[in-house]
């Protein structure tokens, strides 16, 4: 067959050729939602440097990274899951569960920290696999499934430990969690090393691999992906497994950083992660989003809260600001779409089709 000229483009006479890109690089790079977030991040950062007392100085970034590390870690798989138009609300519960497991396994079963951590991450992966199985193979909506497992995993965590909190962990491990990479005084904690490694892997997986292309196709149009030979179920399944394992790793970090394993660790973290991911430009309808935006989103929220804390503001106001930011960021996409749509319609001197307008009422959130 391969000898057939028809299926050999170069065999065809003067075949047409195309430029790779319609717009120059700078426009493709700058006119994106991701860049908007990064720019905003830069602005907020510079503003804080100038106007927020004590914001400059190595401690700010150091604490910032310590605080947002779990969110950074979990945001990676969460972004991929949301790009396939699914969601995982159970991540924070997995963090709690793995934290408890590390404690129990270390104290009661006498495992060394690394072993306990590995075991916890294995359990985390299993939790993720349970989500993945129910979502892709039983075909249940991930929102409902993970609301369920959210309660389930958290419940197991709290149930296992009950009243007590495990707090005796070997110094060198708890210190490691807060160690600085470039020696004292610098602002980069060691947790950034595993994060960067995971980030590189995630970037490769999502942006530079066949698997990643599949993720986007599923998000845009799962049916077409299926017709093209993408294994939709398996892809989603693995994403949930990864999410579980990474969340468990974050749980290990959580435990060591605070030197205390508690069932209620990281309560409510899932919403922070989702907020950051959405802020980072990932569409909840799936198919859109990129990791640099996500990372920027997480850091942005982190910087805003730490700046506001330094200003002496407390959670209340921080919550409000984050909420408003979240709503605005999601609205902005659709508002921009609407605006450009109107613009295009006007330039062609045409009314926008009524259907699109009415379709507004039906964003289906899954």
């Amino acid at each position, binding site marked *: 067959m391969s000898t057939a000229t028809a299926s050999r483009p170069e065999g065809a006479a003067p075949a047409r050729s195309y430029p790779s890109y319609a717009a120059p690089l700078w426009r493709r790079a700058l006119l994106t939602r991701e860049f908007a977030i990064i720019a905003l991040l830069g602005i907020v950062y510079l503003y804080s440097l100038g106007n927020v007392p004590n914001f400059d100085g190595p401690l700010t970034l150091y604490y910032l990274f310590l605080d947002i590390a779990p969110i950074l870690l979990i945001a990676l798989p969460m972004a991929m899951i949301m790009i396939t138009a699914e969601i995982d609300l159970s991540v924070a519960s997995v963090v709690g569960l793995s934290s408890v497991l590390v404690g129990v396994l270390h104290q009661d079963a006498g495992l060394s920290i690394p072993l306990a951590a590995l075991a916890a991450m294995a359990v985390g992966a299993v939790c993720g696999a349970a989500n993945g199985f129910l979502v892709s193979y*039983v075909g249940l909506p991930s929102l409902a499934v993970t609301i369920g497992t959210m309660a389930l995993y958290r419940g197991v965590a709290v149930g296992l430990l009950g009243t007590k909190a495990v707090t005796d962990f070997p110094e060198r491990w708890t210190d490691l969690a807060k160690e600085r990479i470039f020696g004292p005084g610098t602002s980069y904690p060691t947790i950034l090393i595993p994060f960067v490694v995971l980030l590189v892997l995630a970037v490769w997986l999502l942006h530079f691999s066949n698997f990643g292309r599949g993720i986007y196709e599923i998000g845009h149009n799962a049916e077409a992906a299926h017709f093209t030979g993408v294994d939709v179920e398996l892809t989603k399944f693995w994403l949930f497994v990864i999410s579980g394992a990474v969340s468990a790793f974050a749980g290990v970090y959580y435990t060591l950083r605070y030197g205390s394993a508690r069932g209620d660790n990281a309560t409510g973290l899932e*919403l922070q992660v989702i907020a950051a991911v959405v802020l980072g430009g990932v569409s909840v309808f799936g198919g859109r989003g990129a990791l640099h935006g996500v990372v920027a989103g997480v850091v942005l929220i982190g910087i805003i809260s730490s700046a506001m804390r330094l200003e002496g503001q407390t959670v209340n106001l921080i*919550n409000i600001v984050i909420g408003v930011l979240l709503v605005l960021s999601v609205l902005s996409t659709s508002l921009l779409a609407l605006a450009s749509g109107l613009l295009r319609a006007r330039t062609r001197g045409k009314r926008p089709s009524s259907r699109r307008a009415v379709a507004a009422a039906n964003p289906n959130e899954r």
Partner: protein
Amino acid sequence: MSDTLLVEPSAQPAAARVLGTLLRSREIAIGAVLVLLVVLTTLKSSGFVFSSDGWRNLLVSPALLLILAVGQAVVIITRNVDLSVGSTLGLTAYLTGKVFIASPGMPVVAVFVIGLAFGGLLGLVNGLLVAYGRVPAMVITLGTLYIYRGVFLSWAGSDRVNADDFPQGFNDLGTASVLSVPVVMLIALAVMAVVGYYLRTARGGRELYATGSDPDAATLYGLPVIRRVLVAFVLSGALAGVAGVVYAARYGTVSSGAGSGLELQAVGAAVIGGVAIAGGVGTVWGAALGAVLLITINRALPMVGISDFWQRAVVGALIIAAIVLDRVLAARQERQLVAARDLARREPDRRKAGTPA
């Protein structure tokens, strides 16, 4: 030859049909589980039902979540979700306190109206953002969850509401009974009855189902989709408002944490009650039963000697079980229908044999 297209004729007698639907209905299933639970727990400790307090708590405790679950069910039926109800509840509960502090003589009914209106307003904000912003409800209401809670904290931060800020008459509402049925529960049941009646017997109610069942078809059909979505969110907000007033009446003090985390419980209750996250399916009766079941389990576990630390685990398992059950039943029905269609094609005269149960 039209026979080849026949689906099931409405041949079976009405009685049989009613029975069949009853047996297949989720409400009955949940109800049965609930009864079983209560019976078992009562056998363990008779006080669970047969003591004035036991009886009262059995009915009072679920009231709050019941109201929220009803509102949540309506939103989910339109293929949306409202995560902000917890914050709305807290905010309204606090407002109630403020109202009484401002004007102690305020009649209780007026306070309920205020709560209703205020909650409805917050719901309207959600609705407008979702309907016109073309944004998934989950994100919007997640945002407003933060915002409302934050507003609540900053406001409540300044000073707080204690039991003695409320007039006695209002506080008593939390425990008063009529014919040994607590007033709070009566309120919840009234809410449920009204909403349920509307969903079942009003055109608008049915349009909510249609909208959730297939939004595009609804638009194509010419249903006022935007208005329906707004209605759903306003209703959910308003009910959260009512729940807030009830909260104030029952717990007397309103601390800054009031209502946090209730949103997911409400969604859970609705899902357990057979309201499908994908929209278009479910009843408020189911959601209400789901709520009662959730709360009663929480109260029953300690009685039967399970540490209440395990409650959340049980609840989670319950939610999963519920949605898996739904899927299994749906799959079975689908298979039966296909088989029926097949049979109809091959041997028209023996069609009825293929009647799906």
